[in-house]
Each structure stands twice: as structure tokens, then as C-alpha cells.
């Protein structure tokens, strides 16, 4: 549970809270890492004797993969931020995900990401997509190229950051609008059910999306038709320059979903194992025909709403705190307090504590990831720019449309 500031409030009686592991892993979480997954629903997808701490059953390599994914998202952004600050030729912009990495990572770890398109789960990102994309498994070099508008980018330079997508890994992508993506995602879930597939559709949407009228359409129809849809609400407390209390009367947005009779949970979005636990439960329920789930991950973004090339530190569009004279801005202490619970640190500490990784090995992995990302940027930024005339392609499946700009 959380108060309206999003601070986690300890409530030891919560049935969904991480119990002491009975498994092989020595379990000794630091107080600072404790997260609460509070069940708001009476409906559970737990088998007999299942305590819902699914992360305990994950093999080591899968756990390490989650750590690696978090690092990839983080270092993709830090490398990109460096480009924005230092490279005058760099053109990509981003809505940074730093601080939220454990959400996308924990959710996507519970999904089917490999295989033919008719079998994998689909992810809709709506907005702030690069973290979701990496977690779903897109090719990072081509994503980097796309964000710099290169011809060989993931979408040929047509999309750019706000609209990246790669259906081949089930990443249907972002549309950047606040509203439509969840409804469209529910349509994919509808198709799965109609054709008897056990695939699942997942949509990531921010706290800002709550106010959009589409929120109601999505949840109402998902519930009525028992659709295999998982709505992941990333509540990072703000939309642009306003605290979510300006647009939402609920403290937990999950309460809004629970009102429809949808199993709904809040979870500590900074701890990837907690996120994985609730995602696993939702995915199992959806595959078994049990219908939709709603997950509210309490999380925080470290940087400004967005970052752009030519950024200067401390200015809007760079990576400091939002400097505008605004209705409701983020207090510096709030930012700092959240940074104390960094998803990278939490994931690393858990793995080290569980004896999965030595501290040094964890640092080595980080160095590997850094190098991998550096190589991705090097490749991407040497790719060709787009051919102007290609703008007339892909309007329809076949052919091109005529140029009209010359009369």
C-alpha cells in the first residue's frame, strides 16, 4: 500500500507481501528493499500451496538475465544522454525510463518472447517506450539507429523514439498518445480469445493515462469479455508537470480497476522480483482463461519528462529536475529519496545476497553491458541517413503515393 505521495507504507498483514522463502536461497532482504505487493482482489490465480513468490522458482540464468536487462535499459539511456550533451551531430530524443527499469523487466520476464508471431505475447508500450522495447527483446543497435533517424533503423527512420515498434519480438510498440494504446491492446486480447490462442496482451501506461476516457473502455470491455489483457500502470507520480492527484481521485490507481471486478494489485516497481511475482500471476491467470489483470507499479522517473539533443545540464529537456515555474513540480528531496531505492542496486543486491552472483561478477556484467551499448551506438551512428523519396512508401501495402510538394 502507498500513501498519496507514493511512499510505501509497510503493512505486514498483506497477504501478497513477500514471505520468507522456504527455498534454497538464503533470504535476507535489507529493510530498504522491502516491497509490498498488496492484493486488492479476492480472486487469486495461485495453485494449492502456492504462496505467490514465483521468483523463487526462477533458474539462475533467468535471474541474471533480468539484471542484465535492467542494466541494458540504464546504459542505453546514459549513453544516449552523453550523446545529447556532447555530440553536436546526435539527433535522437528520448523520454527516459531511468528509475523505472524493474517494471518493464519484471513484467516481460513473465512473458513468452520467442517463437512465431502467432504464439508470442504482445506488448503495447503507449509511451516512454525504450525500456519496454529492450525488456521485450528488440535488437538494441537497430533501435538506437531508429532513434537517430537512420535508414537501417528498426523502423527505417519513419518512427523515431515516440513510435518505435518491432512486431517480430511481439513489441507492437508505442504510439505516444495518452489514451488509445490500452484500448487497442484489448483488441489484440480479444483476437487471442476469439481464435482460441493462449497468448496474452500487455499494455504499459502511465498514471497520466488514468484520466483518459479510454481507460474506462479498456477495463470495462476487458472485464466483460474476460480478455487476456494485462494492464500495467506505471505510476511514477507525475505526468509532465503535474502530480497525479490533479487528475486522479484514487491514491492507488489499482482501486479504479478493482471497481470493475478486475484482479488488481499494487507492487513495488523498484524491485524486479516483486514485479515478476505479480506479473507471473497475471499471465498465468490470463493464459488459463481467467481474464484481465491490473498491476499498478509504484515507481519514479529520475530525469525530466524528456531529453533532447543539444541539452544542457539543469535545463528543461536535459536531465535535472524540471525547472519551469509550474503548477506542481517535483521536490528535490522526493527525487533523492526515490534514488535511494534504485532498481539496478536492488536487483544486484538481491542476486548477490541470494548467492547467484559474486559482487565482482555483477560488476563485470555491468561492464559487458556498457561495452555492448557503446558498440550499438557506434554501429547505429555510422548507419546511412534516409533517402528522402522513401517518405512516399509504405502508405499502403503496395506502391507509393505521388509527390505533391512541388505542385
Amino acid at each position, binding site marked *: 500500500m502507498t500513501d498519496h505521495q507514493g511512499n510505501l507504507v509497510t503493512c505486514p498483514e498483506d497477504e501478497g507481501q513477500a514471505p520468507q522463502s522456504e527455498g534454497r536461497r538464503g533470504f535476507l532482504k535489507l529493510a530498504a528493499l522491502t516491497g509490498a505487493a498488496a492484493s486488492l482482489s479476492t480472486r487469486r490465480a495461485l495453485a494449492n500451496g502456492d504462496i505467490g513468490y514465483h521468483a523463487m522458482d526462477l533458474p539462475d540464468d533467468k535471474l541474471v538475465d533480468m539484471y542484465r536487462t535492467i542494466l541494458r535499459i540504464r546504459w542505453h539511456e546514459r549513453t544516449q544522454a552523453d550523446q545529447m550533451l556532447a555530440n553536436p551531430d546526435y539527433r535522437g530524443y528520448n523520454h527516459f525510463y531511468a528509475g523505472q527499469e524493474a517494471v518493464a523487466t519484471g513484467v516481460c520476464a513473465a512473458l513468452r518472447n520467442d517463437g512465431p508471431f502467432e504464439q508470442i505475447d504482445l506488448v503495447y508500450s503507449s509511451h516512454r517506450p525504450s525500456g519496454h522495447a529492450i525488456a521485450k527483446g528488440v535488437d538494441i543497435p537497430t533501435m538506437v539507429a531508429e532513434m537517430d533517424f537512420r535508414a537501417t533503423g528498426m523502423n527505417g527512420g*519513419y518512427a523515431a523514439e515516440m513510435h518505435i515498434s518491432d512486431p517480430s519480438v511481439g513489441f507492437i510498440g508505442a504510439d505516444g498518445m495518452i489514451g488509445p494504446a490500452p484500448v*487497442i491492446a484489448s*483488441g489484440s486480447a480479444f483476437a487471442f480469445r476469439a481464435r482460441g490462442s493462449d497468448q496474452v496482451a500487455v499494455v504499459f501506461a502511465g498514471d497520466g493515462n488514468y484520466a483518459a476516457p479510454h481507460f474506462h473502455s479498456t477495463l*470495462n470491455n476487458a472485464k466483460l469479455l474476460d480478455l487476456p489483457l494485462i494492464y500495467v500502470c506505471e505510476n511514477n507520480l507525475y505526468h509532465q508537470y503535474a502530480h497525479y492527484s490533479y487528475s486522479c481521485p484514487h491514491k492507488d490507481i489499482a482501486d479504479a480497476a478493482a471497481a470493475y471486478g478486475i484482479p488488481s494489485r499494487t507492487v513495488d516497481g523498484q524491485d524486479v522480483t516483486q514485479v515478476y511475482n505479480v506479473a507471473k500471476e497475471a499471465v498465468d491467470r490470463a493464459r488459463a482463461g481467467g481474464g484481465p489483470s491490473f498491476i499498478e507499479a509504484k515507481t519514479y522517473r529520475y530525469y525530466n519528462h524528456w531529453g533532447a539533443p543539444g541539452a544542457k545540464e539543469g535545463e528543461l529537456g536535459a536531465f535535472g529536475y524540471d525547472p519551469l515555474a509550474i503548477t506542481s513540480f517535483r521536490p528535490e528531496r522526493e527525487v533523492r529519496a526515490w534514488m535511494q531505492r534504485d532498481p539496478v542496486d536492488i536487483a544486484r543486491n538481491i542476486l548477490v545476497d541470494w548467492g547467484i552472483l559474486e559482487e565482482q561478477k555483477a560488476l563485470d556484467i555491468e561492464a559487458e553491458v556498457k561495452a555492448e551499448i557503446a558498440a550499438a551506438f557506434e554501429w547505429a551512428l555510422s548507419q546511412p541517413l534516409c533517402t528522402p523519396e522513401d517518405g512516399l512508401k509504405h502508405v499502403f501495402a503496395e506502391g507509393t503515393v505521388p509527390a505533391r510538394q512541388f505542385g
Partner: protein
Amino acid sequence: MTEKSWMYSVLEAVQHEMREDPALTWIFELTPPVASNPNMPVINLETEFGRKRVVNTGIDENWMASAVLGAGLAGSRAATYIPYQGALMPLEVIQNVAGKLRHMTGGKAAMPVVWVIEMTGQTPGFAGQHSCYEEDSFYMHIPGVRTVIPSTPYDAKGMMHAALRSPDPVVYLYPAGLRTLTEEVPDEPYEVPLDKAAVRIEGSDLTIVSSGGGMPGVLEAAEVLKGEGMGVEVIDLRVLKEMDTETLVTSVAKTKRLLTVDQSYYTLAPGAEVVARCAENVEGARFKRVAFPDAPPPASPEMFLWMRPNAEGIAGAARALVG
């Protein structure tokens, strides 16, 4: 071949395609997809294909329009029948997502999706919020979506087959005033292409261009004018996007006179685009447009029927242009 109503012809096509493709779904709102026709079996998609594939929703056209798009993106062909465009909710997702997605993804997104959208309000008594004939212009303006507007049961069936088979998203406009038309329609499946206008009558004095609900009045006027000896060429656009410029320009190059007829608002009705394309490409031609005035359709039949273009007004405009 049997004489068939509009809706029976359309559902015949849908039924055929749903039998061929078990993933194809149909979403409707309250009024079930049922049609009957003398001497033909009743078509009831809901009972034939079951409620997992043929779904009755609440009054949420936004969901209907978005859901079929999501289905298409998940690899299932999907169609929906939106009985009221009034609230314009579907336009949002069709304009801003469906129409842009293939291009924006660099060709990666596939959207085998059809929206059947009723145009209501150009028959007397509707008025106000229940009048939505401006859809043709809205959908014609946006790229990436094929927008068609069949005006006969034969075309309605053939274009439905083509639409359901198309890899492109298709907005299939249905002028509700044509509900009562019947004609001989083959029982077998066939396609009418999604990019060709139809020359309904050939002539060399004057080209009249219209579409959808405007066609019956145009054909009636053409009969009268032919009786007076005027060589009228009548073109039914059928397809608003991509408009078949060649057929239009070829005709006007011959007749040197173009009259367009629209049942929706004059300003930026499809006729504006027809005139503009011909004016760019044919020198020395003369142009005239007949359209509904730039006023919402009123309820009173006296006001409404005077404002809606009819055969007499069309014939008068034709005489003024040719004479």
C-alpha cells in the same frame, strides 16, 4: 443470381469470408448481424459463428474501432459495424493510428481491418447530432486508409470481399439511405477493386461526378437530361481514397464541363477535390458544384428536402453549365 437487398449482399460476403478464415471476427453494437432475403437462407453471423467471434458490445464505438485494429495487429482479420458515426469516436483511432501505422513502422505493421461505418442523417427527420454525412470528407483526407463508398448492392458485396481480403485497413462507408436498394447480385464471391471509379453512363457534353447517397439523384437527373438530348457522362467515385484521378481527368478532358454532386456540406466535400484535380489537369474547362449548404441538416422535411441536392437541382445546374 438473385435480387438482393444491400445488407443481405454485404452479409453474404462477410459470411463467406468468416467461413474461410476461422480467426476473422465481427464486432457489432446492439443490432445483431442478421439479414434475410426472399427465397434465401437467413444469415445470422452471431448464431453461426458464436459469441467469441461475433460480439455484441456496449455503446462504445471507440472500443469497437480500436478493438478491430488491435485484432488486426495481433494477426487476426477483423471487422466491425459502427451504426452511428455521430460521436465520431472511431475517427480518432482510424486517423491517428490505423492510417499512420504501416508507414510509421517502416512497413512492419499489418492491419487487415474493416470498419463499416453508417452514414445517417441524409434522410428527412434526423437532424442535429444524428446527421453525419461529413465522414466521407474526413476519411478521404487522411492517408493510409482505403476509404470506399459503394452505391449499389452489387458493389457493396464485391467491395466487402475485397475489403476483408485487403492487407490495408479499409473504411467502408455505408449511406444508410441506400438501405432500400435491391438488384441482381451473384451468389458466389467476387471482388470489386478498391481503387477504381465506375463510369455509369457515357457522354461527351458534361461529366457529373458523385458517390454514395448522391448517386440515385444523379442517375435520375441524367435520365432527364439525356431525354433533353444532353450527352451526360456519369461517374460514381466508389473510392474516395485513393481517388481514381485518371478516370476523372480523362472524362473532363473530353467533356470540358464538370459538375460535382455531394450530399454533405459544400465546403471541402469530395467534390472540392474532384474539381481541384480536374482544374489542375484540364485547361479551359468549366466547373460547378452542387452540395448540401454549409449548415447542419434541419429536422423539418420542408427545410431539409429543399436543402438536400435532388434530381431537379442537379439537372438545373447541369443545364446552366452546358447552356
